[in-house]
């Protein structure tokens, strides 16, 4: 047991209970269903914009060529144009692959002692972080996009299409959506990795566990509502459409579990800009990924250099020419003939 994950776990439980009891006991539907979601979305957008503008206005470091391939060199040496690009096209491809396929995680290695007599420390490729991250991020994306059915009426056909593909296995009634199950499984895997891999436990802080528990809580309440306890979906859509059209209403017959789900989502949104989750915006600004390695081909002048007051040799000689000649020192320009 470790405080670093017990405290976030307790916090998520408490947040769940606050919303659940607040609705079931105190009848605070208007707060958890209307006020807090609006506050959260404002906090999310304002915080996100503030953070990114802060990054945008800070100094861009000199191009850091931490690359994974041969840089542009002599014509007969083959360049790795994606891993070590010298053009903006190459950088664009590298960024696209980083954002959509997480290539940095693909290169993840682990250090371990050999399980034989030699007992040597060796590094090996560890692909499961990459697989877990891909499963997590893509299923989360699909889940978020699927929720557009609660904010649009009529629902656009692209969302219907997505639901069709997501529900293609037609298991049970209501039919299972693969993305929800994969999301929960992947989040649990990423959590297990932090808890059971001692080297990862060592570098994990409460701020690493909290978003994981929060997302697990959101996925669990969502799945519980859809597959187990069941909710009045028309009532819920009345509420969400009310939020989207700025005419909020509180429907009858919707229980605390829905408000707890909504509250956890609102907490995630409000917490987002202050947390590590800002890598969503930050990945675009990764200095080692988004700059071409052309430091030898192009001169990069420090943009905030001030004008240094210089005194060149010519100026020096102009100043002291007569004295230099008197002292017998050689001069570049002879003394002007005075008329």
């Amino acid at each position, binding site marked *: 047991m470790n405080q670093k994950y017990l405290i976030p776990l307790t916090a998520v439980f408490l947040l769940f209970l606050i919303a659940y009891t607040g609705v079931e006991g105190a009848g605070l539907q208007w707060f958890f269903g209307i006020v807090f979601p609006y506050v959260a979305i404002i906090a999310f957008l304002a915080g996100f914009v503030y953070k990114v503008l802060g*990054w*945008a206005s800070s100094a861009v470091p000199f191009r850091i060529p931490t690359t994974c391939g041969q840089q542009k060199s002599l014509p007969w040496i083959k360049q790795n144009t994606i891993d070590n690009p010298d053009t903006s096209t190459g950088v664009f491809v590298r960024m696209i692959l980083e954002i959509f396929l997480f290539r940095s995680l693909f290169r993840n290695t682990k250090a371990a002692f050999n399980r034989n007599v030699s007992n040597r420390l060796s590094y090996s490729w560890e692909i499961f972080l990459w697989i877990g991250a891909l499963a997590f991020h893509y299923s989360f994306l699909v889940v978020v996009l699927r929720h557009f059915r609660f904010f*649009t*009426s009529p*629902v656009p056909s692209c*969302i*219907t299409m997505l639901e069709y593909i997501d529900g293609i296995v037609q298991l049970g009634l209501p039919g299972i959506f693969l993305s929800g199950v994969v999301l929960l499984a992947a989040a649990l895997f990423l959590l297990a990795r932090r808890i059971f891999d001692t080297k990862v436990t060592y570098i994990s802080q409460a701020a690493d566990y909290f978003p994981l528990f929060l997302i697990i809580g959101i996925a669990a309440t969502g799945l519980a509502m859809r597959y187990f306890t*069941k909710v009045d979906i028309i009532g819920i*859509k009345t509420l969400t459409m009310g*939020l989207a059209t700025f005419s909020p209403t509180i429907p009858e017959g919707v229980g605390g579990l829905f408000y707890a789900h909504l509250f956890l989502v609102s907490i995630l949104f409000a917490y987002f800009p202050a947390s590590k989750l800002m890598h969503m915006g930050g990945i675009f600004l990764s200095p080692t990924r988004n700059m071409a390695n052309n430091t030898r081909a192009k001169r990069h002048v420090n943009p905030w250099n001030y004008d240094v007051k210089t005194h060149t040799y010519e100026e020096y000689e102009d100043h002291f020419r007569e004295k230099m000649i008197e002292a017998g020192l050689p001069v570049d320009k002879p003394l002007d003939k005075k008329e």
Partner: protein
Amino acid sequence: MNKSYIITGLVIFVLAVLSPFWFNMITDTQAAPEPELLGKAKTEKKCVLEKYEMRANHMSLLDEWRDSVVRNADRQYKAANGHSFNMSLSTGENSCLGCHEDKAKFCDSCHTYASVDPYCWECHTNPKEIE
């Protein structure tokens, strides 16, 4: 990274996050369907489950009914209110559609609104549609 790219990206992101709001402003938003009891259901006033439970749970109930009929040949459902119902979606007077006569209003209006596409009708037919 170039500042103008960052601002462009940020504007796109903010617009994407706010899409539920502006999407409903630029398109005609359909109001929530008003469930109404028609025909026989209007006079009978007794259903298999209580109203909100029925709204939330009817799909599970139908799933259980399907298993019960197909696997155990048990077609009678004794409801909590004491009435007995025929476990059937569309066959006979005592089935779901036997009482709630208008499929478009009883099933489709809410399903379309919530973007639910149940596969009931891949096997069952709406009795009204049979000539």
